[in-house]
């Protein structure tokens, strides 16, 4: 057992810290600030008349605010027996100085009402590490928080952070270069000249090219045809993981059937993954890497041609209407403050950059709120959210646009489980699942 594991075992063995009361009771002013920042229009949180006749029989607080009530605030300090503070100190001293939240799994036993005052306890579940991550070597720290009102358990949360030693930024990986033979050189020379060249033996086209003709005659030599570049997607892959040198995740690679009849592989540019479908008309593009190498690629023939239908893939599941969130600087700052998260990386650009980020970025409490909003807008104002479990991917920096997509995973009567994903410029920002109960009479 390492020193860190020993220290963690000791902290975990101490069990939960003593309950810490929220500064303020659940109150409408804080709710209003939050729903305004998140953009959640559900009337059960703000309209007393609607709420009174709803399934809740009165106003309730958004369940995704659970953690907001017991946030320590701008000047707050951790209690002496808070296990999170203790393990952070241990890891800081071991050189794992940076922190990022990775998972947040909230379960709501019931909704909170204005006037109720929440208390929270935190318990260390454990640490795992050291792990090599994209950010650097680090330890995953898992805590379990429980929220109570007068001793009644109203909600709980598994929260996981990565405490890491920042790695020196690596230069962007170069592309994987092709091995070129005497038989294939003309193809690569063509790409450098902006031509998609297909090997031709008499009337027969062949791709990928090779040294022998279809009839096996040793006295014939091939030439090539310059393809029109037009074709249709025969099949495709949306690559999410792991990283590939020279590519930004996620990316689409398409196997295209040219109108001349052969199939050629290339990255499909300028098309969102959910716009791609088999049969999509495309045209060749040429991606120059350097003087020696140009790669073949594709672009949709007509922009907007793609459509969002993805046959054979998602046809059998119910999809939620997508939600786009413009994560402007104002949005990032206002949601951070509305969730009572005063970490500087969410409102101070200079501080964020000094810590290695390219800008301020969205906080995890907001992600939980946005996921709740996205699913509620589909399920209706009286759907009851039972849990929101999310995992963070790439950061969402100010200026990005997030697109939330979701689909029903399982449905048992009124009980529904939904998978959610939010993607921005850098790739997948959040994935997760939401469990909810649909209102009576919903179909």
């Amino acid at each position: 057992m390492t020193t860190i594991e020993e220290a963690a075992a000791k902290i975990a063995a101490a069990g939960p810290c003593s309950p810490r009361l929220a500064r303020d009771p659940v109150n409408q002013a804080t709710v209003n600030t939050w729903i305004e920042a998140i953009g959640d229009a559900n009337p059960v949180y703000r309209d007393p008349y609607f709420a009174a006749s709803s399934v809740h029989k009165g106003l309730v607080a958004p369940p995704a605010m659970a953690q907001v009530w017991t946030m320590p605030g701008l000047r707050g300090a951790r209690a002496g027996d808070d296990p999170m503070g203790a393990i952070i100190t241990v890891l800081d001293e071991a050189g794992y100085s940076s922190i990022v939240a990775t998972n947040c799994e909230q379960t709501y036993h019931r909704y909170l009402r204005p006037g109720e005052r929440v208390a929270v306890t935190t318990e260390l579940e454990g640490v795992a590490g050291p792990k090599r991550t994209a950010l650097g070597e680090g330890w995953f720290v898992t805590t379990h928080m429980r929220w109570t009102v007068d001793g009644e358990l109203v909600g709980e949360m598994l929260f996981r952070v990565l405490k890491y030693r920042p790695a020196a930024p690596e230069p962007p990986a170069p592309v994987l270069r092709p091995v070129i033979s005497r038989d294939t050189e003309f193809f690569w020379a063509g790409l450098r000249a902006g031509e998609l060249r297909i090997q031709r033996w008499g009337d027969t086209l062949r791709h990928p090219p090779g040294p022998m003709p279809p009839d096996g005659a040793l006295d014939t030599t091939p030439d090539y045809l310059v393809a029109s570049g037009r074709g249709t997607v025969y099949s495709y892959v949306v690559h999410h993981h792991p990283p590939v040198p020279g590519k930004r995740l996620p990316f689409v690679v398409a196997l295209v059937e040219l109108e001349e009849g052969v199939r050629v592989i290339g990255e499909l540019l300028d098309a969102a993954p959910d716009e791609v479908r088999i049969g999509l008309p495309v045209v060749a593009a040429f991606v120059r890497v350097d003087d020696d190498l140009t790669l073949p690629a594709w672009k949709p023939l007509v922009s907007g041609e793609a459509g969002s239908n993805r046959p054979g893939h998602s046809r059998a599941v119910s999809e939620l209407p997508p939600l786009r969130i413009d994560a402007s600087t104002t949005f990032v700052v206002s949601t951070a403050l509305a969730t009572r998260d005063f970490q500087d990386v969410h409102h101070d650009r200079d501080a964020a950059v000094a810590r290695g980020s390219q800008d301020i970025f969205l906080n995890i409490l907001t992600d939980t709120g946005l996921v709740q909003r996205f699913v509620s807008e589909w399920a209706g104002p009286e759907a009851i959210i039972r849990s929101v479990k999310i995992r963070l991917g790439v950061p969402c920096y100010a200026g990005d646009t997030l697109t939330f997509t979701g689909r029903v995973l399982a449905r048992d009567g009124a009980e529904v489980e939904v998978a959610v994903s939010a993607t921005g410029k850098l790739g997948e920002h959040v994935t997760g699942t939401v469990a909810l109960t649909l209102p009576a009479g919903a179909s």
Partner: protein
Amino acid sequence: MTLSRAAAIAGIGATEFSKDSGRSELRLAAECVTHALADAGLVASDVDGLVSFTMDGTAEIALARELGIPELSFFSRVHYGGGAAAATVQQAAMAVATGIADVVVTYRAFNERSGQRFGRVSAAAAAQVNSSGVDNAFHYPMGIATPAATVAMVAQRYLHDYGATSEDFGRIAVVDRAHAATNPAAWFHGRPITLAEHQASRWVAEPLHLLDCCQESDGGVALVVTSAERARDLRHPPAVVAAAAQGSGPDQYVMTSYYRDDLAALPEMGVVGRQLWAQSGLGPSDVDVAVLYDHFTPYVLMQLEELGFCGRGEAKDFIAGDTLTLNGPLPLNPHGGQLGEAYIHGMNGIAEAVRQVRGTAVNQVRGVDAVVVTAGTGVPTSGLVLTRD
């Protein structure tokens, strides 16, 4: 002379399956062979042949030195990644049947999680200066650079052509993990999954979710092959090699046979299947257990079609209900497969086939007479039919 029923697998051995073995690949190889010889009731000096994969990092002579195998009269390697698995037994059986060797051990041992991870991009595969490197030039630089991505391209077309869904792929993962859950040797022992969990798992290469992909594992498996006649005198009832076949199809590539008329098929496994049935005199309806290579779930469906268990595009209907469960008509991968037990390049599946024939598996299927077991898919591949004596 025919190969069918001339040889048998008389011993099986494995290391533990882990994510970090903490020892060298050579040590893993030596351990699994030691266990396999003990299982057969043989000693190192009985061995005169060794066979492995070209991808294996342990040379036959290094293994012979460590184990004290004094002389080798037969050594051979089989190419094309996991497609080699069953072919190592075919090599051994041919050597035994022709009198070239008497006791041949086949092995595969690697630190495939803690060392070189197969799920990552292999720059070396892209850069090799040979005909395979030239082949790889037409997809690696464009971004088809991992095993999952190569399979996803075929899987996407399969969904399109036959109206299957990601959930149909997921049903394979659910069955494998259910079987692994009751196999103490499996990495995912005690950890079954639901179809909803499969659907919620993150994308690796659409249309493949994380739970469509096998594990990366550390470990080793070895098999002892000798004549059926000699095997009868050894410790366990022989698992007779009723058929052993290799197959490569038209316009074949390694994982990227994208230029065939029909993309959504595995004709190389059809080549294997036709030989298996012809050699053994058996057919799909005679098979009591199917151990099908499951590095990625879509290829299990396509193997069922290529081997003749159902028609082209019908696997999604064939696997409905309890078909693949331990008490179903065609139990699949009772050990949990490579999705559930471990990814040892298909060799752990052959060991499971032997246990099922012996009647000693932890998830034993009742009344097993014949087991079909296959090797890596999407590549030139191989397969076996093992039967009771």
